[in-house]
């Protein structure tokens, strides 16, 4: 049941390797040596080791454009995947994803309201967009969890139905607003597509605390989630306060998903497929599932985003196309092959 220390070491090394490779790739060709030099020279105390003989514009490209985007892909990919684990576990539904209880439609409405009503008047800048999206996501989640109660208990089926209904209403409101208002409409479309393009360090600063805290709390609840899979009555008899657990898991999962959506827009597929595929590979034990989902989801989205921004350069593809195109066939293969997990 434990993840061995040397395995964690292997995982960390592979993440660092993928990050370096992804940072080295881009529309603008920059020698790997220069990139490593830029990275090293920004580690405090190591500046003297490198002779910075590259143009300033290139350093800005690597350190201000590529690196934050690469790291954000890791955080969003890992965050969405762990959030997916939490929702699939707490709703005991393998088809659940981070958006199932209205996070995405709430965030879309929040972002749309911000883009159409606040940003054109110059009240706030585009930098405030994550705040609007985050607020929208939380309001939607709150409404859904209120509606998702049956006989005073949070009930998975009611929650899912409430999520679908509220999602439909909010999406309709977004469309309605887009018909009425014209300014910034193009920006609304862009946001709704979901992308990591043009994101900077401040986006990373918004999402990272939520995602990391969420992963730690998810691991904290992992044992209870294992028991919860047995069913509410069985979990109760094993000493788990089921209502308490469900509430916390929904709060943590929603906060993680909201943080990710608020900086990247709605990126599909990752939060549904990564946990599901890993459950097929490694079983349903949650501590393992959460850890593996985090790093696999992180690398998966990073690879997808790197492909999205380089394959048709200078044009960038929406990252959702790549996640579905790469992840879909692999997932079908896993499904057809059957579970590979036998302890």
């Amino acid at each position, binding site marked *: 049941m434990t993840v061995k220390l040397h395995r964690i070491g292997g995982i960390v090394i592979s993440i660092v390797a993928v990050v370096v490779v992804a940072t080295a790739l*881009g529309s603008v060709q920059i020698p790997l040596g220069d990139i490593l030099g830029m990275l090293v020279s920004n580690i405090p105390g190591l500046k003297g080791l490198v002779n910075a003989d590259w143009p300033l514009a290139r350093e800005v490209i690597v350190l201000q454009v590529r690196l934050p985007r690469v790291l954000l892909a890791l955080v969003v990919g890992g965050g969405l995947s762990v959030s997916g684990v939490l929702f699939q576990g707490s709703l005991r539904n393998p088809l659940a994803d981070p958006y199932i209880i209205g996070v995405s439609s709430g965030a879309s409405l929040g972002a749309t309201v911000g883009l159409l009503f606040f940003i054109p008047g*110059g009240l706030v800048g585009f930098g405030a967009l994550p705040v609007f999206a985050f607020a929208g996501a939380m309001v939607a989640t709150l409404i859904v969890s209120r509606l998702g109660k049956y006989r005073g208990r949070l009930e998975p089926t009611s929650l899912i139905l409430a999520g679908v209904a509220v999602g439909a209403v909010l999406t309709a409101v977004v469309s309605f607003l887009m018909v009425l208002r014209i*300014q910034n409409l193009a920006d609304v479309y*862009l946001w709704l*597509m979901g992308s990591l393009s043009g994101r900077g360090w401040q986006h990373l600063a918004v999402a990272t605390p939520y995602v990391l805290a969420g992963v730690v709390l998810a691991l904290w609840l992992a044992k209870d989630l294992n028991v919860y899979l047995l069913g509410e009555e069985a979990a109760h008899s094993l000493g788990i306060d089921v209502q308490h657990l469900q509430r916390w898991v929904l709060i943590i999962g929603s906060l993680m998903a909201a943080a990710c959506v608020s900086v990247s827009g709605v990126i599909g597929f990752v939060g549904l497929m990564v946990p599901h595929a890993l459950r097929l590979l490694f079983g349903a034990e949650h501590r393992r599932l959460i850890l593996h989902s985090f790093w696999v989801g992180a690398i998966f989205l990073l690879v997808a985003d790197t492909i999205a921004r380089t394959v048709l350069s200078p044009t960038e593809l929406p990252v959702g196309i790549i996640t579905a195109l790469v992840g879909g066939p692999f997932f079908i293969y896993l499904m057809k092959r059957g579970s590979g997990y036998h302890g």
Partner: protein
Amino acid sequence: MKKQWIWLCILVLVLNAGIVQATPQRIVSLAPSITENLFALGVGERIVGVTSWCDYPEEARSRTIIGDAMNLNVELLLSLEPDLVVGDSTLVHSHLERLEELGISTFVVGPRTVSEVQESLIDLGEAVGAKEKGEELASSMELRLAELTGNVRRSEKIRVFMEVWNEPLMTAGPGSFMDELIVLAGGENIAGDAPTPWPVFSEELVIERDPEVVILTSFNLEEALGRPAWQVTTAMKNGDVYEVNPDLYSRTTPRLLDALAELIEILDAIGQ
């Protein structure tokens, strides 16, 4: 709404005034109309990056493409080392704030009427160190506008339907420069009471209001002529359905007046 808009433009101008001091030598344009206007201002050779939609004048095609209507390849843009990026507030412009953070000067235009096009030519000219050329372009537009509208010799207004897109049926409402063109040409926009500048419009209302002219801006003449329900309209009966070059009608550049001239010609032919 319009007032807010002007204030925003002024705000942006004031904010940029401090930054844009030296004459920009490496300019990136984020919209076809901006590219055209920059060439018209005579600073075309200083443009280093354009969008994939920038196709006029021909020379614009030789510049590095840094994105399209939706996406902007930020790293490619940065690698061009621009000292000014010009964006259009009616297109995607959330990138511009990010560029400012990366230390790139930006300038925003967003004219929505013919007179705002004139103003924006002056403003843009000033931003790129070609203020006099901008003023010259603005005043020659003024002259041509007066000449064109002065020649309109029709007493009654001709009902026009301006079809921006066919699926869904979109038209130009009040507040759009296409609506302004119709009015200037002595026509009556049958969608003149629409609530927004670019509304999706009811097909029933088009037939009810019986346009005498239909202008198509999305290369769909054959499809439009084949619409069964539209055959009862005067425009269809008289064969007054015209496919026009959308670039002239949709880009906020001095070429808008070419569109106006064409429109006046079409309406004059009917008015006789």
